[in-house]
Every structure is written in structure tokens, then in C-alpha cells.
């Protein structure tokens, strides 16, 4: 069959370049095949049964192959697009999941802070907010025991007045989670060293350090 090579060429062009170039190659191939490979060779004036066979069989086979490849290519393109939709949805989902986890962690921490404050409400000395505007936000949330507009983002607790002012100064500048020793006035007015505990809470209103008298 004289058109085989052109049929293969058209199929390859269809796969790599698309429908229009493939159709062009097919028509071009039909002309060339008829001119060069169908006897009588190199003459276009003669039309006989050999030409007729080529004219029917070659376009039939080539069109069939090209159209099928085109359909497959289109559904492949569609599938790739749908896969990219799925991927972007998955990434959106993961980002939302991250936000949800962060929110849940903040809520858990807030609950822990509230439990902590109510449990140790007689012994805590002060709460320090680590972010500048955290106390402002706390004002909206109404965490008990915090007053806005205090210097150095510090809200005093019930035992605040008993602690030596020098220690307050020192701790307000450098406070970290763990145990601290603080000079504290007793019931008789004499000051003595007391072990204090500091804990850190990461809530949705910011981070807080809570200092309280140790057990």
C-alpha cells in the first residue's frame, strides 16, 4: 500500500502537534503518494483503479487513526486539567486543615490558661503578654484577671503587691518558663525567698507567661 509511510507520518504529527497539522500532512501525503508511488509514476494526468484504491483506502485509514488519537489527546488534556483541580483542592484542604489545627491548639491552650488561673487564683503573681498588642486583644476576649493599659504588658495578680519591687523589675524584663526565686513579704512583713513557677501559654489572643507561687 503506497500510503503507509504517510499514514504513519500523519499519526505521529497528530500525536505531537495536533489535528490541523496532521490533516495538512495527510492531504500532502495523499498527493505525494499518488504522484510518486502509484503507477504510472510521476504523472498526474492518468486516473485509474490504482488511484481509486489509494483515494479510498488511504484517507479512510489515516482519518480513522487521526480522529481516534485526537479524541484520546482531548480526553487526556481534560483528565490532566481535572487532576490539577484535584491537586489545588487538596492543597487548599491542607491549608485549611493547618488553620483548623492551629485554632484548636489555641483553644486548648486558652482552656488550659483559664483552668490554670482559676486553680491557682490565690497564688499567682502576674501575667505577662509576650506580644505588644496581646493585652488589647485579651480585653475583647475578657480573660479574667487581666487589666488593660499596664506598663510592660504586665497584669498584676492577687500576690503582686507582696513581691519585692526589684524582683518585679527584674522578672518583667527577663521572664522565662521554669522556676524562679523571688523575695516576698510574708504575713509578718518580713521578706523571704520563695520558689515561684512560670508557665507559658500560646492562646489565640497571643502568648502569655504566668508567674505563680510554687506548690
Amino acid at each position, binding site marked *: 500500500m503506497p500510503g503507509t509511510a504517510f499514514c504513519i507520518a500523519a499519526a505521529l504529527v497528530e500525536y505531537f502537534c495536533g489535528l490541523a497539522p496532521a490533516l495538512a500532512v495527510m492531504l500532502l501525503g495523499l498527493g505525494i503518494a499518488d504522484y510518486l508511488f502509484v503507477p504510472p509514476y510521476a504523472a498526474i494526468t492518468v486516473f485509474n483503479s490504482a488511484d481509486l484504491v489509494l483515494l479510498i483506502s488511504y484517507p479512510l485509514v489515516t482519518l480513522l487513526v487521526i480522529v481516534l488519537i485526537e479524541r484520546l489527546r482531548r480526553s487526556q488534556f481534560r483528565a490532566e486539567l481535572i487532576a*490539577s483541580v484535584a491537586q489545588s483542592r487538596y492543597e487548599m484542604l491542607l491549608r485549611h486543615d493547618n488553620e483548623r489545627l492551629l485554632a484548636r491548639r489555641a483553644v486548648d491552650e486558652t482552656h488550659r490558661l483559664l483552668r490554670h488561673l482559676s486553680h491557682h487564683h490565690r497564688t499567682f503573681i502576674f501575667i505577662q503578654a509576650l506580644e505588644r498588642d496581646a493585652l488589647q486583644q485579651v480585653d475583647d476576649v475578657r480573660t479574667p484577671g487581666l487589666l488593660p493599659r499596664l506598663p510592660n504588658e504586665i497584669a498584676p495578680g492577687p500576690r503582686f503587691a507582696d513581691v519585692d519591687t526589684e524582683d518585679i523589675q527584674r522578672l518583667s524584663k527577663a521572664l522565662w518558663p521554669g522556676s524562679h526565686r523571688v523575695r516576698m513579704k510574708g504575713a509578718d512583713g518580713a521578706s523571704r525567698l520563695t520558689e515561684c513557677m512560670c508557665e507559658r501559654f500560646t492562646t489565640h489572643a497571643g502568648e502569655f507567661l504566668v508567674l505563680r507561687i510554687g506548690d
Partner: protein
Amino acid sequence: MSQPTSLFLAGDDHAVLMLHGLSSSPLELRFLARYLNAEGFTTCAPVLPGYSAGSEEAAMEAWLDAAVREYDALAARFAHVSICGLSIGAALALALAHRRPAARSLVLLSLTLSYDGWAIPWYRFLLSWAYFTPLRKRWRYREEAPFGLRNEALRAKIARAMQRSDFSEVGPSTISLPALHEASRLAASVRTQVRDIKTDCLIVHAIDDETSSPRNARFVAANIGAAFLRTIWLDDSYHMITSDNEREIVARETALFLRESEVAHGGDDSGKQPVVSKALARRLRQLAALGKERV
């Protein structure tokens, strides 16, 4: 005939300049502008003379100059200015980002560099020839159903609005030939500039876009020089993604991207969200590995 009006909503020091589609009005960005404003951003959707509906058509250089003026006005007042564009407005946003590389980030919604979506007939190329004939002044391209909308209830509403007014929430009812001609000139110049754009870029495109096929978005995603690039594909919308079924997703992801870009360049980690989700951390590592392979 009513004239379109600019939209300005004051917020924090991150301003978003929003460019609407060709011969349209800031109305089509109203939902997104309000959402971004509620998230804290300052949003500005200006009317550009020569580009918006109801004004005499001007050359695309004039559109770009008008957009640059709006950008400079915002840049003088706000610390961060991002650019967001819809359809041809996205092409304009790309050109603007090329002219002003200091822009914080770039959001391309339904980017249109060529009109090759499924609703565009194959003989549309005749339209660009018609520009050089006497038809130029008389004939106007009329917007037809589905008006870029997958949501049928909304589509019916828009069809009624189109008959009453020259423009609606989803764009103009007709576009003149000179405007289309200038838009294709703009797209051609943008195609050559894409490689030089280094601004953070978010691309949102619907795979069923009936006006501009996903090839437009793929072209930019493959060629843009931005290091921080995010592409989001939608499958329940057509061209007007700011009004269609997934407008909430578009608005949410836009706000998220703008904040992330601001934090990434702000230098302080205070606003940055830690990655808690293990699945997200894994995915980010995968993406980072992919990025290394590409480079």
C-alpha cells in the same frame, strides 16, 4: 446610560489595586473587593479612562499609563501594593507588574491572553481583520449566554440586567472592535514580558473557562520568573470567577495568598502561621523538592 464608578474601601497598609475586564466596570470585582476589605486590606478598583465602560476607546499604552498612575497614587500612601486583575485586566496587571517591579504580589484571575475558550467560534479570527475595514466604527461584539457564568440563576438575572444597562456585575454587554484590537496588542506585548516578571504570583483559572482556555494560565505559569507561584484550578465556574459558584474560594485564597506574600517579604515572623498539619508539611516538602528539580 449609567457611568461606572470607582470603588475604594479603606483598610490597613496593604493596598490591592484591582483591574476589571475589558470595557467593563469595577462592579464585577465588588464581591472580591468587599471580602478583601473585610480581611483588612485596602482595596481600590479604579475606573480607567479609555479602558472602562462608557469612555472613549484609547490605545493600550493609555490604559497602562492610567493603571500606572493609579498604582503610584496607592504606592505613595501604602506600604504594600498588590495588583489583582480579572480577564484582560489580568493581562494589564502583568504589564503593570513589569513596569513596576516593586509591587508586592500579583493575582491573575481568569487571565486572557487570547480569546480561545470553548464558547469562542473558530472563525473569530475574522474579527481581528474586521478592525481594518469600515466595520470598525459600526460593529460591536455582543456578549452572549452563558456570560461567563455557570450558575444558571445568576445567568438569568444577568441576561435581564444586560438588556437594561451597558454593563453589569459580569462585564459589558458589548465590546467595540478597537477595544478588542488594543486588547490583543496588549496580550502580545505581555507575552514577551512574562519572563522578566519576578513578582509573587497567584493564578486562578477555571478549567471550563468559555472565553480563555486554560492554556493562557499554563503559559504564564510555565514562563513567569516568580519564585513564589501558586496556581489554583477551579471546576465549577466559567470565565467570571469573581461572580460564579466558586467566588468564595477565589476571595478566600486571594486574601490568604496576599497575606502570605506580605509576611514572606515583611521580614518578621510574627504574622506567619506555623505549619502544624503533618500532611501540609509533607506536601510542602514535596513541592520544595519539585521546585529544586525544576531549577
